[in-house]
């Protein structure tokens, strides 16, 4: 690689070796920067993006050799097309910025973080995606490990998550659960999902669709589930806090850490073609124990459930 490393290879002992090793370490942070040039493009006014960056920075801080990263605001990215195309790796955060850079024709290898799986479709080989959604198998696994007596599951999905239907079915088959999907085109159809769940299994898993489930409609969903004694499986920590029974989710910080790991892998592998899109690798399980007690469900600890989900996914 470079003079410093060659010297280290040939100098196994002695003060000169130590001195050279020390000098190499001093210059070490500069070495990847010369080679990589990672640029992260975010919306500075977006708190989710800020949290993502916090997790990203926290993770790369521990990398050796260190990664040098430049942060660019999406507001100025429009004027930086050329410098972006020269970066060795660009990381975009969010669907909007991913779309923006795609339209600008930025040619650098790009990792689109915090994108939905639908957005990924049509992207080129030099673009990789880190999805904002959890993999269906992981979500269904949570139901299986947390509620082992359950054999049937109703899944409520909106138009924006309709594409997950096939994956959901496959996951249910793998977990040996009978699944019934209900399409909720808008909030008025939440009731039909609840009715379906009430008829079979009394477990309703909802997928994120902000046009269907939001601050205004969550009450109807949560109360409706509760009044019918239905275990509501959500998709976010906020929904569990609001009154869903449990969820598997990744925080923006965790997604940032995940993105940092993917960046390191990509830089180390020096791949021309980036790996296909992937779901978050770092996730947590949240349980509303107060609700679990009210529904007379004995729930294991969140840490154990997370472990069991990983095992069920085959990731342990």
């Amino acid at each position, binding site marked *: 690689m470079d003079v410093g490393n060659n010297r280290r290879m040939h100098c196994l002992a002695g003060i000169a070796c130590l001195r050279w090793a020390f000098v190499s370490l001093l210059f070490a942070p500069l070495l990847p920067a010369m080679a990589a040039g990672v640029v992260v493009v975010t919306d500075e006014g977006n708190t989710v993006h800020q949290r993502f960056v916090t997790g990203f920075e926290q993770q790369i801080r521990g990398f050796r050799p260190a990664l040098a990263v430049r942060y660019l605001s999406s507001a100025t990215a429009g004027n930086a097309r050329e410098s972006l195309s020269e970066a060795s790796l660009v990381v975009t955060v969010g669907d909007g910025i991913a779309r923006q850079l795609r339209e600008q024709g930025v040619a650098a290898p790009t990792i689109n973080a915090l994108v939905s799986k639908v957005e990924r479709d049509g992207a080129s080989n030099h673009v990789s995606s880190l999805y904002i959604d959890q993999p269906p198998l992981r979500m269904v696994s949570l139901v299986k490990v947390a509620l082992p007596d359950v054999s049937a599951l109703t899944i409520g999905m909106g138009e924006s998550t309709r594409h997950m239907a096939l994956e959901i079915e496959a996951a249910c088959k793998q977990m040996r659960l009978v699944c019934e999907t209900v399409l909720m085109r808008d909030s008025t159809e939440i009731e039909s999902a609840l009715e379906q769940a009430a008829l079979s299994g009394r477990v309703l898993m909802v997928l994120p669709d902000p046009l269907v489930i939001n*601050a205004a409609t969550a009450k109807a969903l949560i109360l409706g589930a509760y009044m019918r*004694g239905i275990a509501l499986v959500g998709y976010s920590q906020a929904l569990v806090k609001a009154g869903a029974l449990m969820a598997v989710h990744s925080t923006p910080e965790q997604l940032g850490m995940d993105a940092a790991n993917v960046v390191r892998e990509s830089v180390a592998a020096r791949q021309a073609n980036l790996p296909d899109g992937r779901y978050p690798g770092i996730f947590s399980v949240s349980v509303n124990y*107060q609700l679990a007690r009210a529904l007379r469900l004995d729930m294991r600890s969140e840490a154990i459930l997370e472990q069991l989900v990983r095992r069920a996914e085959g990731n342990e």
Partner: protein
Amino acid sequence: MFLRSVSARVTGVAVLLSLGPGMAQADESMALGEQGLFGDLPVVLTVTRLPQNILEVPASMTVIDRRMIEASGAIDIPDLLRLAAGFQIAHAGGNRTSVTYHGMSDEFSRRIQVLVDGRSIYMPANGGVDWADIPLAMEDIDRIEVLRGPNGVAFGANSFMGVVNIITRHAGETRGTFAKLVGGDGNYRRAVVRQGARLGDLDFRFTLEHQRDDGFDDVTFPGKPRPYSIKDDKESTRLSFRGDYRAGVNDYVNLGFGLNQGPRGQGYLSSGSDGNFDVDLEPAFDAYNRRHFQQVKWRRILSSEDEIQLNIYHNYTDTQAAYLTAPISEILDLPDPALVPLIFPGVTDQPLFVQQHIKAERFDIELEHRLRINEALRLVWGGEARYDEVQAEGYLGQEDPIINRLYRGFAHSEWRFAPAWLLNAGAMVEHNDIVGMNFSPRLALNRRLAPRHAMRLSYTRAYRTPVILEEYADYAQQLSSDGSVFNPLWKSSGGLDPERIDAYEFGFMGYLGDSRSQYDLKVFREEIRDMVSYPTDLNFPKPYANLPPEALVFENIDQVRLQGYELQLKLEADRDTMLSLGFSRVESEGTVTITVNPVSTRSISQYVPNYTASFLLDHHFGAGWSGSMALYHTDHQKFWHDTAVTTMDLRMAKRFAYAGGEGTFAVSAHNVNNSHFDYQDEYLIEPRVYASLELGF
């Protein structure tokens, strides 16, 4: 254990928090997908509103929900409390009802804490609850949580024998227009009008109610020339308001105010019994009651298990009651009024003046924080400051108000130290101006025996501070000519100690069938010390030698031990049929001092019924028809008579829909099986029929 959140049913317990329109308020810069996953959502199912798993509560509880309230056909709130195992009610007139647990109280229900939406409503003057004067329509009640046993740690002062926690419906649940008319025997008339609406993030309702009735019928006893005609009619106008405002994503403000006023009949129109209650001494008159309250409650929900609440309220009571007796010569049946000065030197023949005016105010502020410390440990802690002021010159012998300040700190933890074990430990420290400092601990151990069954072992200590009347009583008949004391009737020497109860319980509880049914069985022992009784001092010094030397005095004089077992069962095989059963068996030891100077006592067992039972069966037949039957039994309980009583109530209702709304027509019959006296010989409870029509728009 967080008993403020108790309810045993899945349905009908969750609060409805109105949400503002539109998307999450947290971050408008988020993309749609990000908002769905990371946007803030208001907490809907909070720790205070979720039902407590009965396998984990450290005390026995009964929840009287809306279905039970309607099925019972009750026309007032005390009637509902018969559904809780171990509770009895008795009537001291048509407008005063006594509620007791294990028989341990009197017409003022001194030993039970009663709350409405967290606001303590027992009267600072006599410690009792004037049930007829609560500014609350039964139609606005969501549920009543009855905690059977002392609960000082969670509910503070006066939570001695039990706690009745009345929770009203969220304003968001009562939107629209509602009207109800009720009429029945005893010239009972009640009209309720309610309007609920939403304005932005505020749900609110106004309820206006007017009620009147003639009280009990006259009773003619064999051999007596005149019937007992008690003036116990009443008329009330009630106005109440509840507002539920969502101030932020997880900030909620509850507003409440209420007003209740109207005349209450008192005294006798004619007396036809043995002269114990004499129309000359207590002629008929109207007391005028006026009551109002204001309340603000703020809640910040930090998570589903972390919540802070600040509760501030003010209660005001003004009872205008005063009367003149017949002239002394008529009271004593003297042939000549000129004899009066001979019997009572310096006193001319004149009526006596009895002053029963009470004005009382309470200001209270309470802070409570519920949180989860870690996976195994939850905690509730908080503090309260209260200011009670009572002005009752006739009862207290002084013009100036008497003030009692109370400060309370409490903490309670729930520690799951092993998967099947739960330890509840808590304590309350209280200081008040009357007795100083009290310390009330509680310890309960719950053990899960099976997924739906558990056992509980608990110990609780609670104190009851003597109320202002007990500590400062100085009540007398006065000469109407100059207001000087003529005949002292009640006198307290002051310096009373608090009553103390130590309660031990061993119980089994669990769910049956598909878990909609549940049971709670307990064996208990309650030891009460320093009980404040009011015996008659047979040698009480009087200002005039020819007056009977008797007056009630207040002393910590009695000890009582109660033990027995109790069962509360609720069965719901399906959504159409509901059965509620409450049963209590109590053995009592101890005495109640009836007189002092010299001392005479009566066994407490004469006042504590051995058995109390309630049975309520409700069935929905379909097509909007429903019917219910209730049976109530109270074993021998001697006040002025000794009788065991079983009564039966029936109700039939038809729900119907019409353009723009739905309504219900119902007919209920109370005491269909017999007439009986309860509590006192003058009050004959006869069969009565009521009909009601309610419409909602």
